[in-house]
């Protein structure tokens, strides 16, 4: 691998196309040549850096693992079929199910990696072409808790309400449940200032590579992050560090929060979390003493049955110190998936319409229906959330068919044994996929689609900046874009010509109109402006508008302009450990793999680096289970069991095991996880469940 494309290739393939990485929400700038050579490009989020995933991302373009023909299940086997046959089959079966069982018998599942255009058209396809309320997406498993908490506190959710590069001037950054050193490696450049100032704090039950870089690492027991935030907030008050004038001028609701927090003094919180009272006070002093300070949360705070409350508790802390809405300081959520931000704005979420509008809001329905050219009363209402949707598949009142775009739910959803069982009980499972993922392997029809470098489209990165990803290489013969697939299906379902365009820019133009006036207003964004390299953070209400890099500087988005403290209390994990399941399992990612691993496991360099599932465990805990480093362990929860290689790590808490969730089959970490859902965000509790660990043959 070299840094630039070889100069021996023919001139038309030597063109370097400026684009962005296919993986995480950092959306690193890169160039891709006509022969699919990747090179990093200077762009504010990555400043010329790429991780191993980015460098190797082009390997999947021409991979033998690519699907290049539609597959249809015949006599139990997936067999090649023509596009016309496959699409005709899908459309006719969808139409029949709908006629026999009603519109909600057909469901759609999307993904946070899909472009804005795809997310938008998928939502429209579900509501208009299928008329179903049953659509949701895997972002529900990602940052939905932070989205809900952000909306409650600020009246608006944009992951980072400031440009990422603002972090460079911070002398204190607290990362809560975030491991960017592995999940978005080039992000680390933005933390250097805080680390040099002695102010980088990482909250994580594990001593992750990110925690290794911290000046102070706090390792709370899994499921106790909320209590930790209460303890630090208590210390802020007790040590006289409250920003009272900010509280008076820019917020409401602190008194009710304090009545709760008063009962969580640091020594009490120490007993719940295992984080020393002195360290809680130190974080309070560090944040309060900083010139510029940030509190940033990620999946570790969010993926809990109390995820919204947990994020709210950290936002409360940021508010008490007067950070949000102040230039150079703030609160933010590190969105995970490539288009985790845009994906949550344009209508593939069960309760949303484009522009981050609520599907229950009559004004929003009227506006969007007008753009779509349909009567507002034909739009369905809110449907089931992601896990509830998967859980209902094939049940008496649940959907009988499911279309999956950009997601591998057989691996990434919680309680995956249950999910696989539900998928198998469907009358019809259709996937649009790059490779034969574990979900596609269960499907009745698999439609081969293009990927990032083979198509145009926009993404919205973790800082709410809209980016143009451009077509850089020709797609393999036989594959189509997701937009093409939706367009083809819509036509076969009797939708008028032009209502479901297959051209990305045309779809985007319609998206702009649909989002106009909504919280995430894209109406002033055009492909031309993006091609010119303009840095457009939403909202961008018109073409002359320069975008909004920093939100909330003058007022928050609630009607009264104030941020709202949320009174939240510690509850703890939905499934505490007991005698039968004495350990807590937590899940997460490794640097070399992305999400369910469907893409990265097909790339030899990455698969060779981290080839199989493993379980990180303290050597004493392993020894007590009769296991040593390198052995295969069986990890069992109330829902299932998985097999994983033992990695002994001396910095682990003795009561915790960690499993990455990228691996298929018997190695799925999500065979263990608990689908207890947050009451607001419907986020499952991926980050903590009770397990026991034994040798592979089951002996303790």
């Amino acid at each position, binding site marked *: *691998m*070299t*840094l630039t494309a070889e100069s021996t290739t023919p001139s038309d393939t030597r063109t370097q196309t400026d684009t962005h990485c296919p993986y995480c929400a950092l959306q690193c700038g890169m160039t891709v040549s006509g022969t699919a050579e990747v090179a*990093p490009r200077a762009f504010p989020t990555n*400043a*010329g*850096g*790429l*991780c*191993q995933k980015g*460098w190797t991302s082009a390997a999947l373009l021409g991979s033998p693992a690519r699907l290049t023909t539609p597959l249809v299940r015949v006599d139990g086997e997936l067999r090649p079929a023509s596009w016309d046959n496959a699409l005709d089959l899908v459309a006719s079966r969808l139409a029949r199910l709908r006629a026999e069982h009603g519109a909600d018998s057909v469901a759609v599942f999307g993904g946070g990696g899909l472009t804005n255009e795809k997310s938008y058209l998928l939502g429209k396809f579900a509501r208009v072409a299928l008329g179903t309320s049953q659509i949701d997406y895997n972002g529900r498993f990602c940052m939905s808790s932070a989205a809900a908490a952000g909306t409650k506190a600020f009246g608006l959710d944009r992951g980072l309400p400031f440009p990422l590069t603002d972090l460079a001037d911070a002398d204190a950054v607290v990362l809560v449940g975030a491991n960017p*050193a*592995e999940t978005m*490696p*080039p*992000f*680390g*450049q933005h933390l*250097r200032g805080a680390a040099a100032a002695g102010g980088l704090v990482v909250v994580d039950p594990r001593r992750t*590579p990110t925690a290794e*870089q911290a000046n102070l690492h706090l390792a709370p*027991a899994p499921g106790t992050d909320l209590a930790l935030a209460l303890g630090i907030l208590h210390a802020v*008050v*007790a*040590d*006289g560090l409250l920003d009272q004038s900010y509280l008076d001028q820019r917020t409401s609701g602190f*008194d009710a929060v*304090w*009545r709760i927090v*008063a*009962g969580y*003094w640091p*020594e*009490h919180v*120490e*007993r719940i*979390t*295992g*984080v*020393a*009272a*002195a*360290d809680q006070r130190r974080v309070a002093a560090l944040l309060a003493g900083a010139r510029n300070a940030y509190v940033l949360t990620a999946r570790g705070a969010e993926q809990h049955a109390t995820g919204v409350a947990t994020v709210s508790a950290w936002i409360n802390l940021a508010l008490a110190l007067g950070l949000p809405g102040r230039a150079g300081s703030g609160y933010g959520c590190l969105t995970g998936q490539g288009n985790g931000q845009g994906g949550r704005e344009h209508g593939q979420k069960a309760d949303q319409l484009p522009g981050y509008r609520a599907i229950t809001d009559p004004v929003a329905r009227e506006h969007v229906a007008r753009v779509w050219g349909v009567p507002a009363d034909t739009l369905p209402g809110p449907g089931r959330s992601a896990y509830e949707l998967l859980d209902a598949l094939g049940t008496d009142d649940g959907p009988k068919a499911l279309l999956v775009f950009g997601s591998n739910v057989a691996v990434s959803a919680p309680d995956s044994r249950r999910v696989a069982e539900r998928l198998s009980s469907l009358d019809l499972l259709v996937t649009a996929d790059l490779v034969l993922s574990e979900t596609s392997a269960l499907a009745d029809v698999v439609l081969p689609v293009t990927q990032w470098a083979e198509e145009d489209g926009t993404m919205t990165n973790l800082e709410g900046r809209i980016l143009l990803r451009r077509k850089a290489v020709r797609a393999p013969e036989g594959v189509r874009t997701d937009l093409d697939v939706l367009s083809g299906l819509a036509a076969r379902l009797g939708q008028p010509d032009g209502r479901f365009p297959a051209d990305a820019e045309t779809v985007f133009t319609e998206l702009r109109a649909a989002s106009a006036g909504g919280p995430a207003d894209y109406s002033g964004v055009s492909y031309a402006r993006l091609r010119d390299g303009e840095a457009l953070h939403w909202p961008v209400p018109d073409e002359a508008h320069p975008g909004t890099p920093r939100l909330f500087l003058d007022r928050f988005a609630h009607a009264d302009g104030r941020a709202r403290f949320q009174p939240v209390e510690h509850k703890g994990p939905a499934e505490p*450990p007991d005698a039968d399941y*004495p350990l807590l399992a937590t899940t997460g990612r490794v*640097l*070399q793999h992305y999400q369910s691993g469907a893409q990265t496991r097909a790339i030899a360099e990455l698969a060779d*680096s981290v080839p199989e599932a493993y379980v990180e465990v*303290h*050597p*004493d805990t392993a020894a*007590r289970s009769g296991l040593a480093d390198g052995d295969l362990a069986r990890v069992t929860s109330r829902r299932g069991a998985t097999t994983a290689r033992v990695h002994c790590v*001396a910095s682990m808490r*003795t*009561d915790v095991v960690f499993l990455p969730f990228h691996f298929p089959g018997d190695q799925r970490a999500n065979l263990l996880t608990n689908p207890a859902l947050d009451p607001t965000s419907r986020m499952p509790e991926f980050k903590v469940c009770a397990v026991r660990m034994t040798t592979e043959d089951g002996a303790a």
Partner: protein
Amino acid sequence: MSPREVVVLGYGMAGARLADEIRRRDPGAERVRLTVIGDEPHHAYNRVLLSAVVAGSMRPDSVRLHDEQWARRHGIDLRLGVAALGIDRAARTVALDDGTSVGYDALVFATGSTPWLPPVEGLTGEHGELAEGAVTFRSLGDCERILDAARVGAPVAVLGGGLLGLEAARGLAGRGNLVTVVHPAEHVLERQLDAGAGRVLARALGEFGIDFRLGRTAAKYLPGDGLKLDDGSHVDADLVVVSAGVRAETALASAAGIAVDRGIVVDDALRTSDGRVHAIGDCAQHPGTVSGLVQPAWEQAGVLADLLTGSDPSARYRGTSVVTRLKARGIDLAALGETHVETGDPDAEVLCVDDPARGRYAKLVLRDDRVTGAIVLGLPDAAATITQLHDRGSPAPGDRLGLLLGRALPSAAPAAASPADLPAATTVCRCNSVTKGQLVDAWRAGAASAEQLTTATRAGTGCGGCADTVRGIADWLASTA
């Protein structure tokens, strides 16, 4: 079905918590009608934070647990500034000092405790009231009196070297008072600490200017002057803070014929000898706990709320494992379980580190690989880990010293002094999974500078954090060429 009448006597930390817990389970007052009687004139406050008020870091109004609207919002009949006079168990009524009476289906004593006044000549007046210049340390009112009287620079004596006494002493010393603690035992906190820890603690507190008179009792109080001790010596004091222990408030229960020992005796369902009468918090005596701390009171409130609301009729209180934490700025002390076991004890594994010069003391008692007792002073993160192991009954890690010392122990892997010392398998660039071995191979294959190593291996092209290491390796390779 009409709700049951529950009357709570006492609106301190236990009574207020019980009311909160009941309303959490029965927010609409469908199962329980709640009356709370509090003899102080103001809303409940968090007694745990009083030492912060004395230390001056928290304002008195910040320690309130409830606001003015709390009772109305939750449908609670709250009677402030009213005392109970007597209980008619046959009629199930409580007579109040405002002339009214209130009926109950279930009655809860949450009357707390009152300070014990040691027999010191001149300390109390004819009716048992404290003499001028002497104050107990128990209520918000006491705090205000202490703050009024303890002018900056004035000498203050604290009678009693228990938890509250030491917290008051530390707070007053922090405000600029000259504090002397008079304590009858040979070391402070003798119930919670062994002699070694007591010595280190006194020395650490001494660093803040606090004097100790240990093994001494006060013989006579001379208002405006100070204390005369039992050895004839004198302690100057403009103010005497009495913190010599508390006694469970049991008079009403006792008068009503309910079984009382040191406190009101309760079983695991927190029932007294009268099954319709319960007790929680400091006034209750349950075999599984000691009184005077908030944790047992809160756990009891949770169990009793389960029972009174019918949310969980099987709920039982089995005792609380208490962790003693001293809340004194600059001092980090945790003590739990059996702390007086000696290192020579043949039946237990006991480790002890005694480092008085640095204010550190750590003792760990283990049985069957489980932590059964610990004292951790001056090692804050170790205290946090040990407490969790103890609370969960989890086996302790084999690295006992690591556990005992926490971050005070030097980290196991010192940084390699030179690139030459790094093992070949060491990952240099995590972002791109590049090892030192791969860099060396790339050098041997022709890369001749840090930049060329980066081009060849991608090391340093992610977050860039390893750029210095890559440069160091290139320099080393160049020097060995």
